[in-house]
């Protein structure tokens, strides 16, 4: 299999840019006469850039909008507002052949390897299905061979092309999902919790595979996960989401060593460290309460209801995700500071 190597494609240049992306789901009431009584603000103004060859980790707790973000990027959901630029074209306004071409370039690996594969299709049909939609990528007679190459690339036995998903373990199924995502030779792969359904010993195998494929094919990943140590391992840059917004974004080092947003600090401090001796030194920031409902987020800073630094200004003024004096990476906090007690 040949890598989509192209001299004009420079590692590090912006490949995808997302600008103020918004998705509000209506909450409706009534049977005959439906009326909208509110909005769930799943994604509420998200902006970031993805560079060629990098991995951007997206972390956040359930309900923060990270999976909706993935679905918006894939255009599985129609955004309420915002702009997504891929290869210099507006992905959200593209249609027809244009959209088809753009979609080829961005593929997705789903979370659950048990429900994301059709149990009635053979592995060969699953991995080869993208070629039905994009026949220009592989002519019909070479398809079987291409599928077998793909299985080989992800570490599966190419002879298993006629088997069904239930004949594979969870980790192997996730490899099938990865092979399907690779079929059209995309430059970007959106991974939505790709290892969270897998056992620890299998997680490492799949993470290694993703990294090896990135090196081999120059892929860019958007890697969505709630496991902060996995994200740290694989990501070049990390975005932290809370209630539909990116509250902090920066390099792996900026986020994990010099986080300035209180939510990021609390999230990092709560990670269960697998080392009892390090645990004794760990100072956990204990957040009170639960994440507020995205249907009715707090005014101003969304995090202020659980924040120990909150003052009046936080309720009134919405903090922008911009570089702060404490550390030059974007953070959405009026009182951004690097934690000094650790």
């Amino acid at each position, binding site marked *: 299999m040949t890598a989509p190597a192209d001299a004009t494609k420079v590692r590090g240049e912006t490949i995808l840019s997302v600008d103020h992306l918004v998705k509000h789901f209506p909450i409706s009431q009534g049977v005959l006469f439906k009326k909208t009584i509110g909005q769930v603000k799943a994604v509420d103004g998200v902006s970031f850039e993805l560079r060629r060859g990098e991995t951007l980790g997206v972390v956040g*707790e*359930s309900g923060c909008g990270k999976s909706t973000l993935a679905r918006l990027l894939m255009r599985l959901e129609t955004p309420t507002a915002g702009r997504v630029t891929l290869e210099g074209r507006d992905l959200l306004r593209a249609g027809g052949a244009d959209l088809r071409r753009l979609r080829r370039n961005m593929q997705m690996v789903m979370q659950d390897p048990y429900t994301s594969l059709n149990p009635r299709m053979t592995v060969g049909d699953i991995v080869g299905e993208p070629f039905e939609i994009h026949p220009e990528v592989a002519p019909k007679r070479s398809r079987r061979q291409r599928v077998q190459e793909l299985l080989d690339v992800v570490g599966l036995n190419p002879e298993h092309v006629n088997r069904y998903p239930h004949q594979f*373990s969870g*980790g*192997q199924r996730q490899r099938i999902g990865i092979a399907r995502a690779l079929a059209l030779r995309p430059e970007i792969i959106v991974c939505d919790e790709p290892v969270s359904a897998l*056992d*620890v*010993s*299998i*997680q*490492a*195998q799949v*993470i*290694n595979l993703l*990294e*090896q494929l990135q090196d081999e094919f120059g892929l860019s990943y958007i890697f969505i996960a*709630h496991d*902060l*140590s*996995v994200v*740290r*391992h*694989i990501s070049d840059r990390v975005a932290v989401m809370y209630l539909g917004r990116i509250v902090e974004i920066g390099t*792996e080092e900026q986020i994990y060593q010099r986080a300035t947003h209180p939510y990021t600090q*609390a*999230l990092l401090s*709560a*990670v*269960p*460290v*697998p*080392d*009892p*001796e390090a*645990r004794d030194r760990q100072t*956990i920031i*204990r*957040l009170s309460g*639960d*994440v507020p409902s995205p249907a009715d987020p707090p005014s101003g800073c969304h995090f202020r209801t659980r924040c120990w630094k909150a003052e009046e200004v936080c309720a009134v003024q919405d903090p922008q995700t911009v570089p702060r004096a404490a550390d030059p990476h974007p953070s959405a906090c009026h009182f951004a500071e690097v934690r000094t007690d650790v």
Partner: protein
Amino acid sequence: MTQSSARPTPASPTPPGGHLLEVRDLHVEFRTREGVARVINGVTYHLDAGETLAVLGESGSGKSVTAQAIMGILDTPPAYVRGGQILYQGRDLLTRPEEERRQIRGTEIAMIFQDALSALNPVFPVGWQIGESLRERAGMSRADARRRTTELMDLVRIPAAAKRLGDYPHQFSGGMRQRVMIAMALALDPKVLIADEPTTALDVTVQAQIMDLLADLRRDLGTALILITHDLGVVAGVADRIAVMYAGRIVEHADVRALYRAPAHPYTKGLLESIPRLDVRGQELSSIRGLPPNLMAIPSGCPFHPRCPYVQQVCVDEVPHDLVLGDGRTSACHFAQEVHDDSAG
């Protein structure tokens, strides 16, 4: 600190009067249409009053089935206990009639389940569900049960407990539902609490809250805890001792600190090494090769041998005994000492 002489059985110091709870050489199999799955193959562990034992394993290792056997809530069929003993205060629960086991459930040993949403009844208020065992088992009047329920909800730190008695499970968040489950389990003041993946469905910040709560309850009430989990991070924070399960066996058993410092079984070592850590960022993660065994065809000898980097012919031929490595720690590996020394070095 270690001794190289290998004795066939672990010499666990038994306190006078025996352990509070002891599982001895338990065997459980599942009889299915496809064949017999040998899910538990000789599990032995014990729990003393007031301590926390973590049972760590991946899916299919048998950690939850062992707990279900202790509680007497195995689904039969397909599950059958094929041998062994479960001693609670010296009495073998497996030989007791169902009526006696029912008396022990809840009052002596209680359990918290992973998924609070499906473990709670959606059509009854949580106050009614927590109070059920108080009315039915402790014979309390409705008014007394209500008062005690409010106390229990306060104990597990559900805010405005008195106002929330009449709320239904769906009106609570995931973390609060797990607190309701804990309140239910504590209602009859059990001596042993079994928590089966209590925080797996929760976010990290909420997970930290629940683990704190469990640690506080254990300190304040003196309840002994069996914590069943797959998460090496959760274990490190709360447990005194840890038993690692693989293919229905305890493969390693040690004090938590000793185990994290230097695992003595290749499986434990592999698990610890496969966690992403700061010092291996940008490098390949070490992983355990291959797949967990098919329980209908467990490999000969040591069940871990097809995945083990230390494998020798003896591993294929002979089932390893628990080797005692000093400090009461054991490892079911023919090369336990070597593995331990490698990890320590």
